[in-house]
């Protein structure tokens, strides 16, 4: 969803456009905008950074673990390793694994973890009529899920050399099921899911040849990811090039426009949690240290949703940490757009203007990096890019 996903989306979009077979969300034969948008500048200054969130994306070389295994007398259905696409894949992955759980006809099930995958899986199981207990060491706001970017744009989830057979089909099913499940949250009070205009800005033409791959910070060559192919162009917003007259950013030579869907975590998380409890779900705060401990739970069908924690508690060494950091400026509800410029992306959410560094250089520093300490210098560097861009807007008279 962040960083890598962004690169992949561009790749996917290029493919979709080249093939020309998919209309694309928001794409029409008309110009993107009839007139130049009047934008409120983002108040991007280092002293308006009120939070820096750092997380580890749970990349799994083979793709998400969706297998079923026996631990003692318990059946464990795995649901982890969605890379940076946990929010995007949450409902589809939950649905797929809850169906597997139901095939054992349990009355009660356990869900391990309450990040977006765990909590969504638990709600889906409740909707399916089961009694559900979540076992978790943290509630959603303290999980890594809550430290994501949170924008629609499912990206790759495996290495090309190790992807499990049929991964593309499974991924597409998860994406499409999720997309349909997000629909009922749109238009709700508090905007748990919202849409905003997004501007991709560049000092060079968009069709310029891409730069050479950058080696990873650890010296390894850049990983080759599994290509999800031309699958979801119809539910992916395809950017349209803006003519200079329609480009609302002074001093920026090239601009593209699209519309993006995103989550407001507080509102969306509150709805998921409220539904969980209103359907009778229970939460037990606890930690697990070895798989054998699952055999002691009263529930004998368990859906395991630990995210990156699977690296340690399930000893899944195919999990690779991919660091991500977002910085948050004080909310500006009057800013109704997001932008991408010089490897920095912004998104105006209900709880703040999110700023994130993206692009190949940032990815090279993030791959196999499990340092979860917020980096203030990185945050200020990103905010300065936006600050400089905003300084190009004419000053309004007092």
């Amino acid at each position: 969803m962040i960083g890598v996903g962004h690169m992949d989306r561009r790749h996917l979009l290029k493919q979709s456009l080249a093939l020309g077979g998919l209309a694309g969300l928001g794409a029409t034969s008309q110009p993107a905008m009839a007139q130049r948008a009047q934008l409120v500048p983002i108040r991007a200054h280092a002293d308006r950074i009120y939070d820096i969130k750092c997380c580890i994306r749970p990349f799994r070389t083979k793709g998400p673990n969706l297998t079923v295994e026996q631990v003692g007398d318990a059946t464990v259905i795995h649901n982890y390793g969605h890379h940076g696409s946990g929010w995007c894949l949450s409902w589809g992955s939950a649905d797929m694994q809850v169906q597997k759980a139901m095939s054992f006809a349990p009355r009660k099930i356990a869900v391990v973890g309450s990040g977006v995958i765990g909590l969504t899986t638990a709600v889906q199981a409740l909707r399916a009529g089961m009694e559900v207990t979540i076992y978790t060491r943290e509630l959603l706001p303290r999980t890594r899920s809550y430290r994501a970017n949170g924008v629609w744009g499912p990206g790759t989830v495996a290495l090309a050399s190790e992807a499990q057979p049929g991964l593309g089909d499974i991924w597409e099913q998860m994406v499409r099921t999720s997309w349909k499940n997000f629909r009922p949250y749109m238009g709700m009070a508090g905007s748990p899911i919202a849409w905003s205009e997004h501007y991709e800005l560049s000092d060079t033409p968009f069709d310029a040849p891409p730069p050479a791959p950058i080696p990873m910070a650890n010296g390894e060559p850049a990983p080759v990811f599994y290509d999800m192919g031309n699958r979801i162009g119809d539910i992916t917003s395809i950017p349209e090039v803006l003519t200079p007259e329609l480009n609302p950013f002074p001093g920026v030579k090239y601009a593209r426009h699209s519309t993006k869907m995103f989550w407001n975590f507080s509102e969306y998380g509150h709805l998921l949690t409220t539904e969980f409890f209103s359907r009778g779900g229970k939460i037990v705060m606890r930690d697990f240290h070895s798989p054998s401990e699952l055999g002691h739970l009263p529930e004998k069908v368990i859906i395991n949703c630990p995210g990156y924690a699977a690296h340690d508690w399930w000893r899944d060494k195919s999990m690779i940490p991919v660091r991500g950091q977002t910085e948050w400026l004080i909310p500006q509800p009057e800013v109704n757009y997001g932008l991408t410029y010089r490897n920095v992306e912004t998104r105006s959410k209900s709880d703040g203007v999110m700023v994130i560094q993206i692009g190949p250089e940032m990815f090279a520093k993030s791959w196999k990096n499990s340092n979860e300490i917020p980096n203030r210098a990185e945050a200020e560097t990103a905010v300065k890019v936006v600050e400089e861009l905003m300084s190009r807007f004419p000053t309004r008279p007092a």
Partner: protein
Amino acid sequence: MRTKMMAMAILVLASGAAQARSSIWDGAYTDAQADRGRTAYMQNCSRCHGATLMGTFEIPPLVGRIMPYYSGSSLETFFDYIATAMPLDRPGSLSPATNADIVAYILKTNDVPSGSRELTAAGSKTIQFDVKPRKK
């Protein structure tokens, strides 16, 4: 001969059972070890978990809730987790002796009393992580 072997086996089993009954509350580390552990903790762990082991909103604390979270397992489970998963940005990079010192410091900070024998990786297998001292 056979009787003698059986007697020895019973003795070994009995001593194993006696070892298994050892608890973290029976003096599982020494004060000197916890002092070394404090230095190692400050060098390797405090950047995330904080100088007071309280953690942050996003980083788990190492005081308080770790007692019930690890209760019922052996101290080896706790030791192994630290040895394989920590420090988060370079897991498994510390020596077993340093990890044992850090475990000692964490126990001390959680008001688990020291004793006269140093904690070792091997020794942690026979020590039970009880949330409270057992009633004598």
